[in-house]
């Protein structure tokens, strides 16, 4: 089978695992009707999707998704593969951060630091020490886990949004190190010549293979996230999100659970960073700063964190918008920074009308209520 079909098939299989309401899953399924809509601003990951979809629609959706995913490979377009790769990488981090925000209800304002930690670990170890890519990625993961534990442990013991502050500080420290410690990171000049990712003899050199690797990594991340939802620790996290007091009274070690999900989300971001380094071949401080940390949070709020797809949608939207405006901005100057304005506007609109994010898209709550009243009045 040629590599194109292989990747497309893999993508389709991945998609079928991830579709909400997968048959055969008996745990946590809600029989009969959607539940009451959440009261908080849509930052809670719920059990399988509330919409009931017929099998045909599900299959159609899966095929469509596989087709979209396969486009960059089928068209052999380096540009599309590059865009797709960036979407995939952003989506991995977004899903990871979505776990933290959706479950622990905590915000990390420095997730770009973990992203950068993974990228720079890979870059430094592969270019200067000739380390095998997998080992470099693992080193990045371990280092990230350590840093996340050191930052998270004190912050998450406290009630309230101290993690946001701690991670804000962490992000800035990381940014300064990347920019100023030239002996380590080469400062603004960055590190070039990062080899493509390699698993023993298989080298993911071409655009298509690189892209395929990222799609696989994203699928893996989403499976991790989904498995976590339908599990004892996942329930514990959902419980503590609603009431830490009650969760504690049920025997949940709240601080530890929050720390674990924080470390997990950091580690996934680090993996994304390593993949970024291999894909682009060059790392510099620019993509790993405070700005990206904020953009990540916006991706999740806009896309929604109620299920695994929300952050992916948010990441895709953001990346495409960013790409489009950057290309257009080469012709018309002011468009270059317009994405910040547009994303900010999108954030406001979404929070007002669709607090659960775009993935929960139906009529805005107000219009829906009016429609229902009209129905009841007429019937």
């Amino acid at each position, binding site marked *: 089978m040629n590599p194109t079909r292989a990747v497309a098939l893999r993508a389709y299989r991945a998609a079928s695992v991830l579709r909400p309401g997968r048959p055969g899953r008996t745990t946590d399924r809600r029989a009969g009707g959607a539940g009451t809509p959440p009261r908080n601003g849509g930052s809670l990951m719920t059990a399988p999707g509330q919409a009931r979809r017929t099998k045909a629609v599900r299959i159609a959706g899966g095929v469509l998704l596989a087709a979209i995913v396969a486009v960059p490979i089928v068209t052999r377009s380096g540009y599309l593969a590059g865009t797709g790769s960036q979407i995939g990488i952003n989506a991995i981090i977004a899903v990871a951060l979505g776990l933290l925000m959706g479950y622990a209800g905590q915000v990390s304002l420095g997730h770009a630091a973990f992203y950068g930690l993974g990228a720079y670990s890979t870059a430094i170890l592969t270019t200067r020490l000739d380390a095998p890519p997998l080992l470099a990625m693992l080193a990045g993961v371990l280092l990230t886990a350590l840093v996340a534990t050191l930052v998270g442990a004190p912050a998450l013991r406290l009630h309230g949004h101290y993690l946001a502050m701690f991670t804000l500080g962490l992000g800035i420290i990381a940014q300064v190190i990347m920019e100023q410690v030239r002996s380590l990171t080469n400062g603004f000049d960055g590190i070039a010549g990062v080899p493509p990712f390699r698993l023993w003899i298989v080298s993911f050199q071409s655009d298509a293979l690189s892209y395929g690797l990222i799609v696989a990594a994203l699928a893996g991340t989403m499976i991790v996230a989904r498995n976590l939802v339908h599990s*004892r620790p996942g329930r514990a996290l959902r419980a503590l999100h609603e009431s830490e007091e*009650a969760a*504690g*009274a*049920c025997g949940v*070690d709240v601080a530890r659970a929050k720390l674990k999900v924080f470390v997990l989300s950091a580690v996934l971001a680090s993996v994304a960073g390593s993949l970024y380094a291999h894909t682009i071949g060059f790392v510099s401080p620019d993509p790993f700063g405070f700005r990206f940390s904020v953009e990540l949070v916006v991706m999740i709020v806009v896309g929604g964190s109620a299920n695994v797809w929300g952050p992916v949608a948010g990441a895709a939207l953001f990346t495409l918008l960013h790409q489009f405006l950057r290309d257009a901005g080469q012709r018309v100057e002011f468009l270059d920074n317009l994405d910040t304005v547009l994303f900010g506007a999108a954030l406001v609109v979404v929070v007002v009308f669709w607090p659960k994010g775009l993935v929960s898209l139906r009529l805005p709550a107000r219009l829906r209520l009016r429609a229902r009243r009209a129905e009841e009045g007429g019937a």
Partner: protein
Amino acid sequence: MAEPVLSTSGLTKAFGGLLALSDVSLTVRPGEALGIIGPNGAGKTTLFNVITGALLPTAGEVAFAGRTITGRPVHEIARLGIARTFQNIRLFREMTVIENVIVGRHSRGRTGFVGAILHLPGMRREERALRERARAYLDLMGLADHAERPAGSLTTGQQRLLEIARALASEPTVLLLDEPAAGLNTRETEALSALIRRLPVEHVRAVGLIEHDMRLVMDASDRVVVIDRGRKIAEGAPADVQRNPDVIAAYLGADFLAQATGRAANGEVRRS
């Protein structure tokens, strides 16, 4: 007399200058339901909070099953075998009814992050077992029909029962109920009373019950402790406590008592 299951000695809790609890010592004996009554703001819920580890006492000790548990974290005390319900219902409203009970059984499971992510076969078995047991507790409370509904959609009475089911799911040694009848009508309260009477016999070793509904307390408790302004002011059989003038004064005020009985608190006869 058998050794008490749960006991506090000299428990004191100060919030700055306010003494919420002052030198409270009580015991809960195996097989008994201990009622805890007192006017609003007396410190009853604070007492539960200190016992369960949600608050650290300023002074005093809490002992459970022969061990000192003062100062241990909430989840550890829960795992040791003390479960509770909350005065202002703290259910996981957006999780289903059965999921709430399954979380109650959290300490009986073992699957951690790694097991969950890898979806190990042991996890599936454990999930099924957890679910079955949870269903049994729902049956006990008469909530089995609502298993898959979001907990927030239940009536107040049902929510209170669900909280009890969730607390029972961990198979605790001691069950602490904080105003379980608040918001229930007469019929529901009677059913609750019957349930509470069964608990120390069938399900737990002892029950602690904070309540304002006097009939429920008198029906369901074996002994009663009265707390007023952070202090224990009376203790004994329900009927005795009911007649205790100090207790009546605490609830209704010394002046009212004087008016009602023609005597002031110090025994002087007054004319109304």
